[in-house]
């Protein structure tokens, strides 16, 4: 009798313990996702050998269950990324053992919704706020008339010389922003450099050719260049057709710019923006026609090609400093000073972090983990 009761208890025990199935809105996401979790410990502790978990879903107001698939027996999480926001769903897990017996457990209904704030990226927010405060302080000082020293940057000092050379030779300047879309920071920085170059081109009445890889960049470049020509007092010298869209194709663009270089023979090539594999093709062709070449990009791999084929190269941050350096605008220069201060803060934090990790306090660095 006791043995029989014990056998019944063993049969009942796993059935009673398996469960803990919980469905909830996936946190810190843009919606359309519900996470289902369950406890796998009772499965392992169970006498029965479970081999399969199947998951089904039902809209709360609906009737039939939809199969979502099978889950590996060791998994304890399922993320359903195919749900509608605001609609209640119930999930059913079917645990099947080796003999074919099954236990069915349903979750409570759950609804998905988007979150406005991703709490796992609070560290990013704090970082951005620190940048805003530091830059804001230096902007404030810049507005008050503060003077900010900027060390000489050879590539930027050479831009004047390059534009002057094109003027002396009576040849055009060729400007390329590479393959970046308008959303890329390097392309936005390129428009700032373009503004300074176009101002000088307007003053010297030197044609400025700007073939583009992206129609939106072409449109923005036309606006920026026109503004620069107006600012220089020579709107009549602006030729909209000289800033044009070629193609989205990477090597189609490279082939066409190469063709422009060998036929129009620009005296100066400026490669400022985001570049990919076309960088060396462009720079080598420019080198072969004897143009003075200045490149600036944040594309680290392409910098090595520009270094071997161009006369001057603006490396990463130097390129982003270009707009302030060329414009000599105290406000833009103040942002450079602010960036330097942020680099100093980063350097100090790096040293402190390394010392902390060496001293065994590495767990504290978990604040830098990004969700």
């Amino acid at each position: 009798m006791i043995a029989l009761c014990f056998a019944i208890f063993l049969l009942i025990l796993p059935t009673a313990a398996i469960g803990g199935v919980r469905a909830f809105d996936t946190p810190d996401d843009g919606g359309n996702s519900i996470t289902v979790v369950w406890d796998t410990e009772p499965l392992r502790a169970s006498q029965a050998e479970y081999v399969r978990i199947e998951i089904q879903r039902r809209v709360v107001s609906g009737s039939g269950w939809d199969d979502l698939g099978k889950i590996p027996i060791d998994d304890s999480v399922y993320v359903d990324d195919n749900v509608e926001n605001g609609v209640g769903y119930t999930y059913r897990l079917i645990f099947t053992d080796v003999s074919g017996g099954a236990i069915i457990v349903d979750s409570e209904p759950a609804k998905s919704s988007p979150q406005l704030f991703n709490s796992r990226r609070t560290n990013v927010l704090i970082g951005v706020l620190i940048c805003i405060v530091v830059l804001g302080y230096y902007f404030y000082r810049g507005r008050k008339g503060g003077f900010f020293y900027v060390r000489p940057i050879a590539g930027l000092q050479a831009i004047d010389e390059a534009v002057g050379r094109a003027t002396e030779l009576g040849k055009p300047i060729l400007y390329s922003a590479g393959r970046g879309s308008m959303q890329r920071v390097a392309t936005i920085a390129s428009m700032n450099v373009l503004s300074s170059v176009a101002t000088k081109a307007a003053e010297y009445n030197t044609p400025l050719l700007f073939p583009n890889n992206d129609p939106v960049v072409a449109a923005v470049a036309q606006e920026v260049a026109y503004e620069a020509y107006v600012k220089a007092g020579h709107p009549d010298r602006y030729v909209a057709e000289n800033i044009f869209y070629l193609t989205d194709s990477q090597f189609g663009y490279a082939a066409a710019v190469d063709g422009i270089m060998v036929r129009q023979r620009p005296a100066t090539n400026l490669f400022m923006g985001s570049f990919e594999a076309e960088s060396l093709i462009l720079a080598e062709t420019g080198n072969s026609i004897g143009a003075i070449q200045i490149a600036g990009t944040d594309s680290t791999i392409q910098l090595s090609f520009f270094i071997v084929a161009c006369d001057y190269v603006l490396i990463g941050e130097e390129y982003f400093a270009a707009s302030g350096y060329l414009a000599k605008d105290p406000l833009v220069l103040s942002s450079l000073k602010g960036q330097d201060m942020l680099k100093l803060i980063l350097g100090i934090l790096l040293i402190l972090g390394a010392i902390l990790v060496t001293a065994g306090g590495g767990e504290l660095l978990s604040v830098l983990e990004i969700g």
Partner: protein
Amino acid sequence: MNYGITVAAILTLAIYSFLYKDNPFYKAAEHILLGVSVGYFVAVTVSTTLIPKLFIPIFSEGKLSYIIPGILGMVMFLRFSKKLSPYSRIPLSIIIGVGAGVSIPAMMQAQIIAQMKATMLPINSLSNIIIIVAVLSVLIYFYFSQPHKGAIGVGAKIGIYFLMIFFGSTFGYTVMARISLLIGRLQFLLGDWLGFID
């Protein structure tokens, strides 16, 4: 005979003829490539963007809010009107503003916080010390508001050496990848086209 392969091979040779000098074959290949690529991208844009992301949501799914980006897109065409072209700056400003807004936190995440964490290494091995010194010295090199003299000058000099080591290694690495692209083209010409190699 596969005419597609022959056309591709002739166009490949026409592009390679630029290595000698600019010539009518290169010009022809260049213009074909430009024309075909623009036509292709127009078709891709219509089939992967305009239809699934604008027309179907508006006309089939009734998502009327999608009309707003549709109108903004059409405002871009006002560039062709001398009188109304200033209005085309509205969508451009939105693109730039949204682009900067989206990329700033992404850069903070990927290029500052993630790299900071990767650099905070225990000072217990030569490689870790080299990594930390390299990052700090390169940061000093990119410090613009102080002249590179004295201790800052020494730090910047070390930084530029590390940068040059990086550029040298990436140059070699990428050249190897480009050589493999050339090998692929040669295999196409000698194998697929002429059948000299299997």
